[in-house]
Structure formats: C-alpha cells, structure tokens
C-alpha cells in the first residue's frame, strides 16, 4: 500500500480536491453516456432495438461477409416483403440471425410469419429489423473482440483508467 502511495502517476489524482475528483468520475460518465445516448437515439429513430449489427457468420455470402456492419430499420408502417433481408432473434440463441425472406404469411388476425432462407419459421415479434445499408468489414473489430474477450477487457480497463486518472 505504501508503494502505491509513492507512485508518481497517481500524483495528479492525489492533488485533486473533492470537486475535481467528482468531475473526473462525471467526465468518465459523460463519455460512456454520450455513446449510450447516441445508440438509444438511433433506436428511437430507426425503431429497431439494435439499429446496427455485425454479421458474424458467412451464411449470407456473397451479399454480406463476416465483419460487415448492417444498418437496420423496423418501422411498423412499412411491412416486410419477400426478398428483403431481415435480422431476427431465435429463442435460445444470443446471436441474431441475418436471412433473406422467401415467403410471408399474413393472417387475417394480423399475425405475420416469415419463411426465410435456412428454413427458420420466424414470427414478426422476433424480427429485430430489416437491412437498409451496410459497411463492409468494419465490424471485424467486434469479431476479434468477441473471439478474445480478455483483449477486450484489457483495452476497456486501460481506457477507463486513463480517463479517470488523467486530469482534463
């Protein structure tokens, strides 16, 4: 503990008063909040609970490759039609699936079911959104992060510490 007290890199923090310390924490909070609020804002605008997804499998090649970013919208007033690419969740799997719609069954009571490539019969409420645009390969970072979780936590911890300890 005494060694920690003597460490030079903590001097900045040790010299701060209560207000400055609190501001450091707030500053960190605002960086996280800004990212979060941009994400929530996108959710509101697109109507999709996850407006940007990364393609994790190669099942949609050659249209999308592993690591492509997809932008989704999920507006109620625009029904999904055959030929569109949808992203949907399946119970028991954490990762959403990207597939093209082959058939749409609309019943009179309002329920809609989709047949997608891959033979997954999915219900309307499982649909996260439809693909509206994509950026190739940017999401490869996400795949790397997912494959090496320790690497991800190391980077996050370093960035967090830097923001907290470095004064303005």
């Amino acid at each position: 503990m005494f060694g920690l007290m003597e460490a030079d890199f903590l001097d900045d923090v040790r010299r701060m008063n209560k207000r400055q310390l609190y501001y450091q924490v707030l500053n960190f909070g605002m960086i996280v909040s800004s990212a979060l609020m941009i994400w929530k804002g996108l959710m509101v605008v697109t109507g999709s609970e996850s407006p940007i997804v990364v393609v994790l499998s190669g099942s949609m090649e050659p249209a999308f490759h592993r690591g492509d970013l997809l932008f989704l919208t999920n507006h109620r007033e625009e029904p999904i039609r055959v030929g569109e690419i949808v992203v949907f969740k399946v119970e028991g799997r954490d990762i959403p699936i990207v597939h093209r719609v082959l058939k749409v069954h609309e019943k009179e009571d309002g329920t809609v079911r989709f047949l997608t490539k891959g033979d997954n019969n999915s219900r309307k409420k499982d649909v996260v959104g439809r693909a509206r645009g994509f950026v190739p390969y940017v999401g490869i970072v996400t795949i790397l992060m997912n494959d090496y979780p320790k690497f991800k936590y190391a980077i996050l911890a370093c960035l967090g510490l830097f923001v907290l300890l470095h004064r303005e």
Partner: protein
Amino acid sequence: MDKWKADDKPVKIDKWDGSAIKNALDDAAKKVMTDNFGFKEEHRLMDLRLLICTVAVGFSLFALVWDYIRPFPESRPILIICVLSYFMLMGVLTLYTTYMEQNIFLVAADKDKAGLEPDDKWELASTLKKYTHLYKLKMTFTNGKTGLCRSEEIERPVNNYFDEEGTLLFKLFEPEVRTLQGRIAAASKKE
C-alpha cells in the same frame, strides 16, 4: 487519508504535456491567493458545471434502467425525452464553459473584516495555447462596495518556472502572482 494527500510533495509533471503544465501553474496561483493572502475560495462557478453534468449523466442512467425494465418498443417515449434532454444539456454545458466559465479557475472573496460591506472579489483566469510556451494569467479584482473592476494580465514563458525534470519551482512563480496582486490592489486603492 492524510497520507493520501500530496500537498507537501514537490509538484513534478511531464513537461511536454501542455495541460499538465497549465494545471500545475493554475494550482500554484490558486495556492498563493488562498494560502498566502487568505482569500476564501468560492465554488459556485464549478458547482453549477458539476450540477449540469450530474443531471445529464442522470438522464442517461435513467434511460438505461428504464429500457432494461420496459424493453424497447414500450420504452420509446421515455427514451426520446432522455435523449433530447441529454443532448440539450450537453449544449448548455458547452455554452456554460465557453461563455460563463471561460478560463476562470479561481473565484475568491476577500472577506470584509467588519462584515458590513460586500466582499471584494478576485478572479483568476489563464490560457496556455497549444504549441506555445507562453502562459497568460489574468487577474480581475472587483470592488464589493463600488462594483468597479480592474484587471491586469501577465504573459510568461513556462520554462521560467520548471526545471529540467519538470518540477515546479514554486519559489520563482509565487512572486509573479504576488506582484500582480499588489499592482492591482495599489491601483484600485487610488481610485
């Protein structure tokens, strides 16, 4: 907790880090005003900034929690309110720091001994532009009774106050602040 404080340790910084240099000099100037002259620091300017930030972070935390309790399509109206409020507050914060706070890092009151008249105010503001070595310190005095302001500034190369290793030479910096204060005090007495 007393051990945690580093007040007695000489201030040593990375001399190539502009903001560290500015912070070190600001702290030193603040110390001269509060410790040597005994002026009392007032925190209102910073407290308001802290309040704005706290409310902003509060909105985002609330959005996070609400979206967790009531998953997305249901939480939409609350999310809209939170997102709009957050970005509005960020705008307010930018306006506040550029127009109200500017570069002021200390507001201190010279308490009237008898306690009858309003306190005199001392304000310190500083700038250290990127890629220059000139530290500009502006001191403003406001007479509590008459409301008259008087300000003066000095501009000095920062290398005057740090040694090779980046240790702050407080003994060299202190007289600069003292003379600046003395000049303003003398001039405003004449009025």
